């Protein structure tokens, strides 16, 4: 079965694995296992027709991503926090997604779940946070192995969009793309800026959901070229220099990435132009050094660029005047300096997330109080039961000691009086013995006579 996203994922994992072998000095085993598992999860998602297996793939990529992000830099507090945010926000999307998957007829969950998974604005903040992961891991997650699944679901299954207002979704996606592009523009950290551009490009793909072949085409081109961009950025970061071949490769990649955009809608065009401008401005993020060496690992991103160009050529390029605008953006970006100050347009959302966690803590504290109260209540109920039993026991004691025991004593006394009445001759030892003998004789005679 031909599955374009899975094919792209295989190529990207291959290149990134080879790149990682040189990039990481040690601990390659963890990455190799993680890459294999995440590829397996994508295969489950794309190849299976069974809803539960698809969900296993959908969730599986998040779980493996958690491991890769958490351990990417040696399980520090910061990397674990980044992995936590990524995983939990994705799970929120999963809840929507699974609600739609398992409830035929309600398709909003696919869109909301996909929106979270693809990190489209305003739910893009988790993707920027997980930028703490190492470059090769980011290259995978940003291309075809995590975020792309959010867009690919409705592309592979157009039925998921039935009954939904596609025009409104398109408009929302374009607006999200523009917001993400602005986020990229205002970002000072190179990796964060690149993450924002991923969000913008994926939103542009989502805007084409109503035309699945086109959306798939842009998604795949983006996957190859974005992976390549990450790997190139990794090389630049490693030496903190742009070497000439790196810069050339970067320019080629962003050029073709820009050409993959087809929409002439004003919002899309604005988003694409700002994104192109931001990507071109990366040239100024690090100093240019003609003597810098990076040729050793360069073939891997070049392979991905080649694959991206091949993917782009599959559909052909229809020239339109609007396409000039992003190219102008690239030209402007190349000569614009890298920003000195940082603005995070998603800061309110991050704050909101932190607030949510505080609310969660508050609720857990309240729940603990409620639990303690419940325990006391039960103890009271049981203790009142026990007290009642104790009272009953006391009553029983009173009955025995106050009524039955005296009554029995009196009865015994009467019986004794009846059996041994005081003899007329007085209570002497011999008299009693004689009386007892007579009574016993009487009983014996009666017994012999009657029985």
């Amino acid at each position, binding site marked *: 079965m031909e599955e374009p996203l899975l094919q792209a994922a295989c190529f990207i994992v291959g290149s990134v694995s080879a790149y990682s072998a040189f990039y990481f000095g040690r601990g390659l085993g963890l990455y190799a296992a993680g890459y294999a598992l995440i590829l397996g999860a994508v295969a489950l998602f794309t190849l299976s027709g069974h809803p539960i297996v698809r*969900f296993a793939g959908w969730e*599986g990529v998040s779980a493996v991503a958690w491991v890769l992000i958490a351990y990417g830099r040696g399980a520090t507090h910061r990397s674990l926090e980044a992995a936590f945010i990524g995983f939990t926000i994705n799970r929120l999307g*999963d*809840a929507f997604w699974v*609600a739609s998957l*398992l409830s035929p007829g309600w398709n909003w*969950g696919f869109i909301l779940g996909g929106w979270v998974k693809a990190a489209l604005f305003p739910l893009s903040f988790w993707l920027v946070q997980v930028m703490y992961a190492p470059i090769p891991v980011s290259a995978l997650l940003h291309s075809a192995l995590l975020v792309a699944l959010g867009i690919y679901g409705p592309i592979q299954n157009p039925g998921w969009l039935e009954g939904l207002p596609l025009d409104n979704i398109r408009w929302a996606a374009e607006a999200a793309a523009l917001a993400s592009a602005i986020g990229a523009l205002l970002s000072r950290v190179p990796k964060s800026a690149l993450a924002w551009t991923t969000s913008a490009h994926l939103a542009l793909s989502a805007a084409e959901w109503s035309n699945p072949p086109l959306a798939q085409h842009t998604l795949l081109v983006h996957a190859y070229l974005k992976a390549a961009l990450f790997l190139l950025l990794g090389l630049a970061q490693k030496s903190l220099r742009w070497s000439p071949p790196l810069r050339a490769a970067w320019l080629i990649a962003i050029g073709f990435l820009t050409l993959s955009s087809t929409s002439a809608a004003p919002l899309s065009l604005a988003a694409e132009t700002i994104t192109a401008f931001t990507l071109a401005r990366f040239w100024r993020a690090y100093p240019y050094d003609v003597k810098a060496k990076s040729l050793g690992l360069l073939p891997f991103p070049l392979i991905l660029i080649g694959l991206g160009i091949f993917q782009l050529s599959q559909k052909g390029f229809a020239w339109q005047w609007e396409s000039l605008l992003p190219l102008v953006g690239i030209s402007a970006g190349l000569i614009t300096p890298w920003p000195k100050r940082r603005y995070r347009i998603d800061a309110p959302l991050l704050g909101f997330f932190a607030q949510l966690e505080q609310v969660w803590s508050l609720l857990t504290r309240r*729940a603990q109080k409620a639990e303690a109260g419940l325990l006391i209540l*039960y103890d009271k109920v049981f203790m009142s039961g026990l007290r009642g039993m104790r009272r009953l026991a006391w009553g029983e004691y009173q009955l025995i000691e106050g009524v039955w025991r005296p009554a029995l004593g009196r009865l015994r006394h009467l019986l004794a009086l009846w059996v041994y009445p005081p003899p007329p001759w007085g209570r002497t030892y011999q008299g009693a013995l004689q009386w007892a003998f007579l009574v016993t004789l009487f009983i014996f005679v009666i017994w012999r006579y009657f029985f």
Partner: protein
Amino acid sequence: MGFFSDPLHLCDMALFLLTLLWTAPLLGAGLILLGGRRWALTVLISATLGETLIWLWLYPQVKAQNLVSIAVPWFSWGQQTVFYALGASPENLWLLLLAILLGNGAIFYGFDVPRLRPFMALMFVSLSAVMGAFLARDVVLFFVFYEASLVPAFVLIYLWGGRRRAEAAIRFALFTLSGSVLVLVGLLLGLYGGYGSVWEAWRASQLPRAVVLLLTLGFAVKLPIVPLHSWLGEAHVEAATPISIVLAGLLLKLGGYGLLTWSWPYFSAFSPLFLIGWGLLSLFYATLVAGGQTDLKRLIAFTSISHMAYVPLGGALPKYGLMGAYHQLFTHGLVSAGLFAWVGLLEKNYQTRNLRLLTGILQTHPRWNLYAILLFMAAIGVPGFGLFISELLVLWGLGTSVGWVYTGLAATNLLLSALYFLRAYQKLLTGGFPPQGAGLFLAPQEALIWVCLLLSILSGLYPQLWLSLLAHVGS
């Protein structure tokens, strides 16, 4: 299968082997009192192997004919006859395996407790009662075994517990005996109402609402469902770890099995929305309480309540929901037992279970870190582990039966369970100065963690092994 019309004498064999399945632990309880530690270990291994072999004999038979059962009249009064009826069916086959593995595994795990032989004897008696309750196909016989399982558990908590063990044991006894009284009254009402006590007759009956309500409340104490759960936290915290393993892995499942099998077989007395609402309340409340815990055992206890809420959720639904509920009993048994076994070893090394005091301990112990990751992922319900399949089946049942709102609400717990487990993991992995423990050596008890993990992974990767049988539940 007719009892006297069986040319191959399979029925006689079934009578013998099914009886042996619950009497073997009793026999073991008697035998271990005759020798020392080595003898006790031999008896334990022999009992485990014997029971496993019987289970392996049962599996193909149940797969082929859905039921291996025997029924012998036990006693009668008036028109009512109570049978000594035992059976293995899709409903209980996997729970029997769970009982064999966890019951004997917990005894092995507790091999270093003081006063070993009485401990082992009581654990064997408890296992015998649990096995009997799972096997019983007569409601009176079930109740006898169900009640019998309480006594050894009470004594075990009382004698081998922590500092406040007496309080915990008494609370456990008060709660569970109250539940048992409700079950008994419900059962007697049913029997005096003229409903047959054997499996087929009981389950085919349209039981009156009062009977279903009493049975449901009684079993809900044992499962437990909020707000009848308050005994569980203390019991787990104060009980020794092997007892916690049996408590979470088996005794709780007995409540769930009772609900699904004897209380709600053809549930029509109440609206499913009532049960779903009750399940959701239990799910979220227990999740919230778990979120604020610093004691690892208490955390796992409340996550157990939260996960067990999928049983009423699934039990209220036809087909997939019911399959998911039965599957959940098995998979959660494995996960909770594995988690308790892991915490028990941590406690043994560091003399504490407090998350605030255990910060950073996993940094220097990769093997323990691996257990933590795998067990937490299994408990979160990540794909590849059995709990994922169980919860998805229940969610699927909800989606197809009552709509996306309930599915979405229940699915939110996917996020919440991730919250508290990942936060706990972060605390264990980073920050602080790890306390000086005796050194995390390779303990034989770790075998139990591996068994739980491997079975959990098997049931997650190849669920068909379970689902092919569970597809017949309720039929």
